[in-house]
């Protein structure tokens, strides 16, 4: 009887350790604890170019993550990229004239949407639209322009 009792305890310990491992993986390792979708509202923003933005990219205001991108589609009428942003419901006081920009975290990091609140007294509601946007900076374009410009300057310098 003693023997089976220790066995029971060990099996219990094993199962508890396994479940603790699963719990650790879901809480500490994955994004389960950081964001849940059901207590959020959705707004849309139209960009000329959304660059490398992806679904699930973070949305931040003043550097703090307040939501995530839930959808990106191309509007064939205006030729713009329509990005749906899901914002945590506790941040429901974003002014209507908030601007949205797409930035890159670090030089090679992932892209995210940054919201800068304006000064309006009316707040963005579920289904609202951000009017003022700034497109993603395409690195290749910027480098191309820089090279082109410096080559031009050199050529002008030679002429003089």
């Amino acid at each position, binding site marked *: 009887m003693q023997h089976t009792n220790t*066995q029971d305890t060990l*099996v219990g*310990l094993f199962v508890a350790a396994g479940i603790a*491992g699963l719990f650790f993986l879901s809480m*500490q390792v*994955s*994004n389960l604890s950081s964001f849940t979708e059901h207590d959020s509202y959705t707004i849309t923003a139209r960009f000329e170019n959304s660059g490398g933005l992806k679904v*699930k990219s973070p949305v931040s205001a003043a550097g703090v993550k307040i939501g995530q991108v839930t959808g990106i589609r191309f509007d064939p009428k205006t030729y713009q990229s329509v990005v749906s942003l899901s914002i945590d419901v506790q941040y429901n006081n974003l002014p209507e004239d908030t601007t949205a920009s797409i930035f890159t975290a670090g030089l090679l990091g992932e892209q995210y949407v940054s919201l800068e609140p304006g000064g309006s007294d009316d707040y963005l509601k579920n289904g609202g639209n951000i009017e003022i946007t700034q497109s993603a900076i395409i690195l290749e374009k910027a480098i191309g322009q820089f090279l082109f410009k410096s080559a031009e300057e050199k050529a002008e310098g030679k002429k003089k």
Partner: protein
Amino acid sequence: MMIKFLQLLGKSTRASFTKLGRASFFLIQIVSGIASVLPRPRLLLKQMYSVGVLSFLIITISGLFVGMVLGLQGYYTLSDFGAEETLGVMVAASLVRELGPVVSALLFAGRAGSALTAEIGLMKATEQLSGMEMMAVDPIKRIISPRFLAGLLSMPLLAALFSAVGIIGGQLVGSGLLGVDEGAYWSQMQANIDFQDDIINGVLKSLVFGFVTSWIALFEGYDSIPTSEGVSRATTRTVVNSAFSILGLDFILTALMFGDD
């Protein structure tokens, strides 16, 4: 000569198909036997001990070392690109998606699967199984099904432990030894590992592996030639076939789960 070759080919094909048939029939018997295990949890508990608890140590220690190696190798490669901060993502993603389920299943096949085959094979060789049948005790319900269920339940737990310990090992090496920022290690991980896509799929993978490994181990034991040589061959076949099916299935599952991203 040609005829002989064709005969040989036909014979081996037929043999492998009949074996597959026997294995499938055996699986149906096992699964229908599970219902009679549930009212007797003591049978299951005993097998959980020998299949799960006794594999605990090898799984955690291997997990720790695999995680530490990942941390080390990942750091060397990532620091070339100045991206050491993403070490956590790399370690966690490779462990949770691939290495956790696969390596723990391979270890499980070697540690627990071979033991199951040898045990069942010896029971058959010493005619314990036919003895049970004589006493009107169904050996499938009494011996096989509890072991199958124990393997199926233990595998996801062991894989989760493997991944969890590995991630901690990667953190020990990464931020303890090599100086990756600890906060960045965890926060980058949390930002990039998805619960549904990564964790749940990893658990599903390990469930599939547990199912297949236990099935192969029990079938090889049950189907073995009841001599000492037959049992030793069956044990070898268990490990080889399990390894093949785990790696092959892993490819298929990965293609299905992470394909459309």
